[in-house]
């Protein structure tokens, strides 16, 4: 399945012949029918609902089918503060989703703990336990920002290769699709971060 020459394809299109590759067709279908998990955590979830509601209408991007079950969902929008009490359930939900699966960290809290970073029960970013594809800053991000993240994700899906050495991660058999669920400890979650996924940023000074 090789790439089609771009010039040849536009030439053919001009004459009414639509040529595509398996990969493009497959990605085109995937990117326009992303089903998010219907799952809100905090304030950002309200903006997520607003994105799905009348004015912003995520249906224009094929993402309106919010699924309450992780088995049917492609995308997890981590919308809101992840607390330490909630983190194991989120990892479990992520593990229950079928591959290929994507994660949007919506809002400052899901990225790093945000304004609640100093809290004893607040996880300092969901990327401590699961990989994140798109981060959107904001507290909460506007619906337009979520739509932007959605389009970024579509772009990412569109660029994923099905074959070859640089094929998408989820197609590699050795790639993990389940991550260890943290346990409730006496003082903190155990472990406090999954070191295979998360490398803390180094303190850098200029």
């Amino acid at each position, binding site marked *: 399945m090789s790439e089609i020459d771009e010039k040849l394809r536009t030439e053919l299109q001009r004459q009414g012949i639509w040529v595509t590759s398996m990969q493009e067709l497959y990605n085109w279908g995937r990117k326009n029918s992303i089903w998010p998990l219907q799952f809100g955590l*905090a304030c950002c979830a309200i903006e997520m609902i607003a994105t799905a509601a*009348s004015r912003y209408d995520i249906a224009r991007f094929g993402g309106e089918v919010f699924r*309450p079950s992780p088995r049917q969902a492609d995308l997890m929008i981590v919308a809101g503060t992840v607390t330490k009490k*909630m983190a194991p*359930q989120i990892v479990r939900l992520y593990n229950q989703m079928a591959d290929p699966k994507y994660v949007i960290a919506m809002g400052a809290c899901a990225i790093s703990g945000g304004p609640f970073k100093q809290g004893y029960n607040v996880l300092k970013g969901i990327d401590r336990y699961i990989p994140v594809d798109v981060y959107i800053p904001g507290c909460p991000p*506007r619906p337009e920002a979520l739509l932007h993240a959605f389009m970024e994700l579509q772009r990412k899906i569109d660029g994923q290769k099905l074959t070859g050495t640089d094929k998408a991660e989820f197609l590699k058999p050795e790639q993990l699709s389940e991550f260890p669920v943290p346990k409730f400890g006496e003082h903190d979650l155990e472990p406090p971060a999954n070191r295979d996924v998360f490398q803390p940023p180094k303190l850098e000074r200029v």
Partner: protein
Amino acid sequence: MSATVQTLEAMERPPVTMTSRLEGELLEVSMGPQHPSTHGVFRMNVALEGEIVRKLKPVFGYLHRNHEQIGEHTTYLGSMPYTDRLDYFCSMTNNWAYALSVEKLAAIEVPERAQYLRVILAELTRLQNHASLLGFLLSDMGAWGTPLMYAFREREKILDLFESLSGARMMCDYMRFGGCRVDASDEWLAAAKKIVDRFPKFLDEFGELILGNEIVIARTQNVGRLSADLAVSAGITGPMLRACGVNYDVRKVDGYGFYPRFKFRIPLGEHGDTYDRLMMRALEMRESVEILKQALALIQPGPILNSKVKIRAFRPPVGEAYGRIEAPKGELGFYLISDGGPNPYRYRVRPPSFINLTILEDMCLGHVVADVMVILGSVDIVMGEVDR
């Protein structure tokens, strides 16, 4: 199926008489924290006999983000944006409750225009909160989408007003000790008036859509009854208390802000069931529209911030104060202890939706499991406030 049309009376069935075929056998179900109808990350451990709820234990803490401890570590003003994120539907009323408590603590006067602005914004908040709640409640009953779309269409209009005034849709951070942060222009007031004038039309349309709907009546009447005595003892406040027929509204009792200047009525229920709770919201919106009309007519130009208040390096005297307002969910209070320092020694939020959940089990026992969602929906909880 018989073709005879049932009367509404015949449809009122007392659910306790329903018998289960699995008598004595209990099935434990954990509903939540990921559940489409728990309004966030709320969890209930339910013991079911067949479909009937025999035991229900709420589990909290999935959104416990340490609001109170963070409040003790930041300055008085620094907590103001955090209050936005308590009940994230109603940032304006949260701001007001906190500002009111600090104003009590330090005896701060609020200028007249700021008082009017506060009333206007609080009532607009009540409108959008109640409209969204009715939409969510219908979603819980299975009317996916449509009522919520109607409600969010109206909500967006009010959020536009908030945004043009404060710069943020949801997290307004608008009030300050002794007033408000920015002044509303004449154009803003005109735009608000336009939205308020059109709101009753939406209420008519929305009421027609849901309040007379036979399915809604069948799902809500006689479901989750709450007696007035239990409600008072359990500290239930807000529309939920008034649905039981108890006339207690902090706007009337305390008369905070400029509420004594307005003419408005307090809707009261009779049965204390889910339908009454639903109706309370619908009727309160009408009264809010009345308050808004009066406030928008009475507001006069003037200062919006008490100029004597120190914004920076604000240190109230040693002591404590408890201030409360009637938030859309119920009585929202802030309890502050000052040790004379720049940040409060103790910062406590009295969360109405948390305390309103105290009697959730009492309301749900004997009902089928599908009713639990409707009853929970009618309590009107927001997890940011329940768990803080």
